[in-house]
C-alpha cells in the first residue's frame, strides 16, 4: 500500500445493495481506480469493521461514497462518523440523495410499521405480539440493537454532504465522471449534483406532440408506441420533473421515467412539480365544471404518492404522511 494513494470509503445505510453493485459496475476501470486509490472501508465488499473506521484520523479518508437513506440509529451514527473521517462525503444513489424507495415508508409511522410487519401480516405467526426491542436483558447480559427512527431521512438532512451522484443505481458513467473530476482536481462547487442540469425530456428521443390526455394508463395496460412521448400516450412519465444525466434510459426502452435522479436544481418538490406539469396536459375541466370526469380520470391513478414520489418523498415539502391534529415534524 503506497503512502501517496488516496483512501476511498464506501458505506451502505438503508439501501438494497444495488449501489454497491453499481460501484463494481465500473468493471475493469476499477483497476485504474486502484492505481490511484486504495479501499479503506467498504463493508459490502471488504472486511473492514467499524473499529477500523473509528481508528482513522479525522479527514483521513479522501472520499466516501455513502449509499442508502438514514433509517436506523446505526445509519445516523455511521453517517456522522464517516463525515468526521472523510474529506469528501458523496451521497451516492437515490436513497442517500432523496430518501429513495425506503422513504416511502414515511407514509406510515414507526409503530404502524412494526404492527404491520410483526403482527398483521397473515403469514406471520406471532401470538404473543412480540416486537423487536432496542435493548434486552437476559442472564445478566444486555443486548442492544439499533433503533428504528420515526422517519427516513436523506443523508444531507443528517450531515453535511459535499457531492451527490444520483440514480437508482447511479449509472457507471456518472461514477466515472465523478472520479475523473476528482482525479483531475476539477470538481465543481460543493453541493453539486454530478449529473445533467436539465430534465430527462431534454435527452429523450421520443417525439413530443404536446397532446392533451383524457385518461391515465399504466404501462402494462396499453400498447406503447415506441416513438411517441409517453405522456402524450397517457402514461405517467416523470421525465419533465427529473434531472437529466441518464440518457433517458428508461423511456428509451418503453418504460416511463420514475424520477430516480430527483428534481432538477430549482425544483424543491418533485411530486408537486409533476402535478403542475400534468395539469397542463389534462383534457378535463375545459368547461371548468367537469367534476365527474375528473373523478373518473383520477380513479385510474390508484397510488398518487407512490407514483409522484417514488424516490423523493423524504425530501418533499411534507416529507411523509401528515396527521390532522397530530404530531408532525
Amino acid at each position: 500500500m503506497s503512502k501517496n494513494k488516496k483512501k476511498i470509503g464506501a458505506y451502505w445505510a438503508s439501501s438494497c445493495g444495488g449501489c454497491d453493485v453499481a460501484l463494481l459496475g465500473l468493471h475493469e476501470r476499477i483497476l485504474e481506480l486502484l492505481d490511484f486509490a486504495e479501499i479503506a472501508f467498504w463493508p459490502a465488499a471488504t472486511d473492514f469493521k467499524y473499529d477500523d473506521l473509528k481508528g482513522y484520523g479525522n479527514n483521513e479518508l479522501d472520499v466516501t461514497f455513502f449509499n442508502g437513506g438514514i433509517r436506523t440509529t446505526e445509519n445516523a451514527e455511521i453517517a456522522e462518523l464517516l463525515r468526521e473521517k472523510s474529506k469528501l462525503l458523496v451521497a451516492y444513489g437515490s436513497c442517500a440523495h432523496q430518501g429513495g424507495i425506503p422513504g416511502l415508508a414515511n407514509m406510515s409511522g414507526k409503530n404502524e410499521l412494526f404492527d404491520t410487519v410483526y403482527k398483521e401480516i397473515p403469514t406471520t405467526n406471532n401470538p404473543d405480539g412480540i416486537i423487536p426491542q432496542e435493548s434486552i436483558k437476559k442472564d445478566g447480559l444486555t443486548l442492544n440493537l439499533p433503533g428504528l427512527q420515526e422517519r427516513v431521512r436523506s443523508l444531507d438532512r443528517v450531515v453535511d454532504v459535499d457531492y451527490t451522484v444520483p440514480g437508482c443505481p447511479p449509472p457507471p458513467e456518472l461514477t466515472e465522471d465523478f472520479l475523473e473530476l476528482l482525479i483531475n482536481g476539477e470538481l465543481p462547487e460543493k453541493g453539486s449534483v454530478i449529473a445533467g442540469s436539465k430534465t430527462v425530456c431534454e435527452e429523450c428521443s421520443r417525439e413530443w406532440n404536446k397532446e392533451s390526455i383524457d385518461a391515465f394508463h399504466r404501462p402494462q395496460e396499453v400498447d406503447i408506441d415506441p416513438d411517441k412521448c409517453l405522456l402524450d400516450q397517457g402514461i405517467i412519465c416523470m421525465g419533465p420533473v427529473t434531472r437529466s444525466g441518464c440518457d433517458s434510459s428508461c423511456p428509451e426502452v418503453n418504460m416511463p421515467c420514475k424520477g430516480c435522479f430527483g428534481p432538477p436544481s430549482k425544483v424543491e418538490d418533485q411530486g408537486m412539480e409533476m402535478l403542475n406539469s400534468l395539469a397542463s396536459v389534462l383534457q378535463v375541466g375545459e368547461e371548468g365544471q367537469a367534476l365527474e370526469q375528473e373523478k373518473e380520470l383520477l380513479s385510474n391513478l390508484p397510488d398518487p404518492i407512490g407514483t409522484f414520489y417514488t424516490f423523493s418523498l423524504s425530501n418533499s415539502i411534507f416529507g411523509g404522511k401528515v396527521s390532522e391534529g397530530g404530531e408532525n415534524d
Partner: protein
Amino acid sequence: MEFEPKLIGFLCKWCSSAGADLAGVSRKSYPPNLVPITVNCSGRIDVSQIVKAFKDGADGVLVSGCHPGDCHYTSGNYKTWRRVALLKHVLDDFGLDPDRVRLEWISATEGEKFAQTVEDFTAEIKELGPGPFRDVKK
C-alpha cells in the same frame, strides 16, 4: 380561547383581488382570518406554494381566479382548476383534508361573493380545527 383559523388567499390580480377591493369599498364585513396575496393570475399558483403554506402553519388556503372563460390570460384559471383537482387527490393521500383547499371564481364585480366566501371558508375551517402544521415550531 376559540380557535381562529389562519387562512391564506391567493387572489388573481384582474378579478378576485378587485372583487376583494370591491368588498372593502362596499363596506361589506367579513372575518379577518384571510391573508390575501395578490398574484398576476391564478394560473401562476404552483401547487407546491399551497403545500408550503400548510407546512408553514396555514389552516386553509383559498385560491381564487376569474370565472371560466374570463381569464385575462385566456386559460390560466383552467390550469389552476386542474392543478387544484390533482392536488386535492394527493393531499387526501398525504392525510391532509382536501377541504382545507378551496377554489373559487370571483369576478371584479362580486364583492359580495368574496365576503361570503371568506365567511363560509372561515366557518368551515373552524369546524375542521387547526391545520396539521399549525403549532409546529420551526
